[in-house]
C-alpha cells in the first residue's frame, strides 16, 4: 500500500437551503397570480378584481409557512413547500376558472381557499408540535385502529355518486376520511414493518429465482388484501382500495428488498380487481366505460371519452387558460376528479407534463428524504407517504387519461376538495419534519481531553 493513494472519506452535510426556498416560493406565488390574470383577461377582457386579494392571500399562506419552517425545521428540504404552494395555487386558479362557467354550479374557489388556509394551519400545527417524527412510532397500533375506523366509517353513510367514501357531519359538511387514513396507515405500516421486516425478509425459500416467503409470513399481506377487497365491495371505491393495498406492497418491498412481494401484490390485486369488477355493478360500469368509452350513455358518450376529447382539443400547447370547453364534460366532477382534463385542454400536453413533473419532483424529494433519513422508521414513513402520494397521482391521472378505470379520487392539492387539501398539507409537513432530521448536520464528536499534549507539532 503506497501512501500516495490513501483516501479519506468525509461527509458533506446538506446546506441550509431556506433562502433558496424563499426564492422559489416567491416564484410559486407569482405563477398562479399570472395564471389568474390570464384567465380574467381571456374570459372578461379585464384583470380580475380579486387579483390583489387572491395574490396577497396565497402569498400570506406561503410566507407564514416559510417563516415557521425557518424557525422549526431549518434544514428541511427546500423544494417541497414551493411545489406544494404552486400546485395549490394552480388548483385555486383552475377552480376559479371553472367557477366562471355558470353551468358548473356554485362558486367553489372561496371555499377551496378557506380549506387551503385550514390545510396550511394543520401544516403549521404539525411543524410546531411534532418535534421528532419518531414520536409517531409509539402510536403504531393505535394508528392501525384509527386508520381502520376511518376506512370503515364511510360504510355507515349514504353513498355519494355511487361510492361510499364520504362521512357527512351535520353542520360541518362532508369529508373523505380516506385522505387522512392514507397518512395514518403509513405510520402503522412503518412501525409494523420496522419490527417485522427481518422475519418477512429472511425466512424464505428460493424457487425459480423468486424468494417465496413461508406460508405463515403471508398472513399480513393476505389480511391487508382481504381488507382492501372489502373496501372495494362495500364502499365500491377502486381508488381507496388500490391506494391502501399498493401502499402496503410498496412499503413491504422497501422494508424487505424482496421482489416476490411485488409479484404477489400484483397477482393478488389483479385477481381481486377482476373478481370484484365482474360482480359489483358500480365497479362494473366504471370498467365498461373504460373499455368502451365511445359507447352511448344517456344519448352522449361517456365522461371518460369526454375527458379525452378535452385532452385532444388541447393539443400540444393548449387552448390557453379560460379558453377551453371543459364545462362540456358532463357529470359532477369537473372541478375535482376531472380537473386534470382542464389542465390538459387549456395548458396542453406541455402544461400537463409540467404539472405531472411537479408531482414527480415532490415525490422524488420524499424518496430522497427516505434515502437520507438515519432511522429505519423515518425511512419507511417517508417512503410510505411519498409512495401514497405517487399512487394517488397515478390512480387519478391514469383514470382521467384512460389508462385504468376511473375512480373517485382527488389530485393532491390541485383538485377541489377540503379533506384532500388539508390531509396533503399535513403529509408535506411530516415529510419536511423527517427531511429536517435527516439533513441536520450530525453533532461533531466531543474533542478528547487528552489530545492536546500529543498533537503539538514541534519545530525541529
Amino acid at each position: 500500500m503506497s501512501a500516495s493513494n490513501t483516501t479519506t472519506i468525509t461527509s458533506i452535510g446538506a446546506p441550509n437551503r431556506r433562502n433558496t426556498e424563499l426564492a422559489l416560493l416567491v416564484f410559486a406565488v407569482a405563477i398562479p397570480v399570472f395564471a389568474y390574470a390570464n384567465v380574467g383577461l381571456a374570459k372578461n377582457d379585464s384583470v380580475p378584481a380579486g387579483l390583489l386579494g387572491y395574490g396577497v392571500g396565497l402569498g400570506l399562506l406561503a410566507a407564514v409557512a416559510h417563516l415557521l419552517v425557518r424557525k422549526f425545521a431549518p434544514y428541511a428540504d427546500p423544494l417541497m413547500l414551493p411545489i406544494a404552494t404552486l400546485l395549490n395555487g394552480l388548483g385555486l386558479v383552475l377552480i376559479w376558472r371553472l367557477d366562471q362557467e355558470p353551468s358548473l354550479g356554485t362558486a367553489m374557489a372561496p371555499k377551496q381557499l378557506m380549506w387551503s388556509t385550514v390545510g396550511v394551519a394543520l401544516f403549521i400545527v404539525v411543524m410546531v408540535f411534532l418535534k421528532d417524527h419518531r414520536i409517531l412510532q409509539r402510536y403504531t397500533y393505535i394508528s392501525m385502529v384509527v386508520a381502520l375506523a376511518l376506512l370503515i366509517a364511510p360504510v355507515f353513510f349514504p353513498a355519494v355518486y355511487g361510492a361510499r367514501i364520504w362521512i357527512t357531519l351535520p353542520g360541518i359538511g362532508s369529508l373523505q376520511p380516506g385522505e387522512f387514513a392514507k397518512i395514518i396507515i403509513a405510520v402503522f405500516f412503518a412501525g409494523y414493518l420496522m419490527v417485522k421486516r427481518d422475519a418477512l425478509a429472511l425466512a424464505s425459500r428460493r424457487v425459480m429465482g423468486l424468494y417465496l416467503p413461508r406460508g405463515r409470513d403471508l398472513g399480513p399481506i393476505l389480511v391487508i388484501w382481504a381488507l382492501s377487497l372489502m373496501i372495494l365491495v362495500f364502499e365500491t371505491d377502486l381508488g381507496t382500495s388500490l391506494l391502501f393495498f399498493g401502499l402496503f406492497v410498496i412499503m413491504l418491498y422497501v422494508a424487505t428488498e424482496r421482489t416476490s412481494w411485488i409479484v404477489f401484490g400484483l397477482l393478488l390485486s389483479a385477481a381481486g380487481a377482476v373478481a370484484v369488477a365482474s360482480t359489483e355493478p358500480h365497479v362494473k360500469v366504471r370498467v365498461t366505460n373504460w373499455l368502451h368509452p365511445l359507447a352511448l350513455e344517456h344519448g352522449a358518450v361517456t365522461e371518460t371519452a369526454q375527458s379525452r376529447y378535452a385532452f385532444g382539443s388541447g393539443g400540444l400547447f393548449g387552448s390557453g387558460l379560460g379558453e377551453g370547453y371543459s364545462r362540456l364534460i358532463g357529470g359532477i366532477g369537473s372541478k375535482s376528479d376531472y380537473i386534470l382534463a382542464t389542465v390538459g385542454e387549456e395548458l396542453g400536453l406541455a402544461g400537463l407534463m409540467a404539472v405531472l413533473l411537479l408531482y414527480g419532483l415532490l415525490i422524488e424529494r420524499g424518496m430522497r428524504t427516505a434515502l437520507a433519513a438515519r432511522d429505519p422508521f423515518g425511512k419507511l414513513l417517508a417512503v410510505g407517504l411519498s409512495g401514497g402520494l405517487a399512487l394517488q397521482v397515478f390512480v387519478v391521472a391514469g383514470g382521467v387519461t384512460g389508462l385504468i378505470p376511473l375512480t373517485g379520487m382527488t389530485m393532491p392539492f390541485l383538485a377541489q376538495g377540503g379533506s384532500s387539501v388539508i390531509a396533503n398539507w399535513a403529509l408535506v409537513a411530516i415529510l419536511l419534519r423527517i427531511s429536517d432530521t435527516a439533513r441536520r448536520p450530525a453533532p461533531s464528536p466531543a474533542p478528547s481531553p487528552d489530545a492536546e499534549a500529543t498533537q503539538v507539532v514541534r519545530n525541529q
Partner: protein
Amino acid sequence: MSELTLTVMRLGFLAVLWLFVIVAVQVIRSDLFGTRVTQRAGRRAETAARPPQQRQQAAAQDRRAQQPAQNSRQRRGAPTKLVVSEGSLAGTTVALQGQTITLGRAHDSTIVLDDDYASSRHARIYPDRDGQWIVEDLGSTNGTYLDRNRLTTPTPVPLGAPIRIGKTVIELRK
C-alpha cells in the same frame, strides 16, 4: 383582448411553468450531499488548519479530565490483544502472542500509523521476561504518552491504559 396578447400570455405561462420545473431541478442538482472522497494530500492541508481549535477545546476540558485518567489500575491477568481505540486506524486489533509490536509510519511497522504526528519509528511494545508488556519510545519527535505522562524510559503497560501517539490511542485488553 386581442388574439396576439392571449397567445403570448398562453405561451408565456407555459414558459414560466417550465422555468419553475427547471429551476427546481437545478436546486436538486446543487443540493447533493453525502460523502466526499479526498486524496490524502488534500486532507493534510485540512488537518493542519484544525489543531489550534482543538487545542483550545482541549485546554478547557483539561481539569475535568484528570479524574478518569486515574481509573486505570493494574489488574490481574495478561492482555491478549492490542486495540486501536482512536485515530484513523480505530477498531484495528492485533493479537498479542509474545512478539514485538512496532508502531510508526514506516511501512514495515506492525501497525503502520497514518497519523500526522507520528514518527516513522515511533514506539515499540514488547513483553519482558516475566510476560509483562513494556512500551518504549524510540526517540520520536512528538513523544509517546502513557495516560498523561510522556515516556522517557521503557515502562510497563497496565491493562486498559491508553497509549497515545498523536491522534492514535492504543490500549491493551484481555
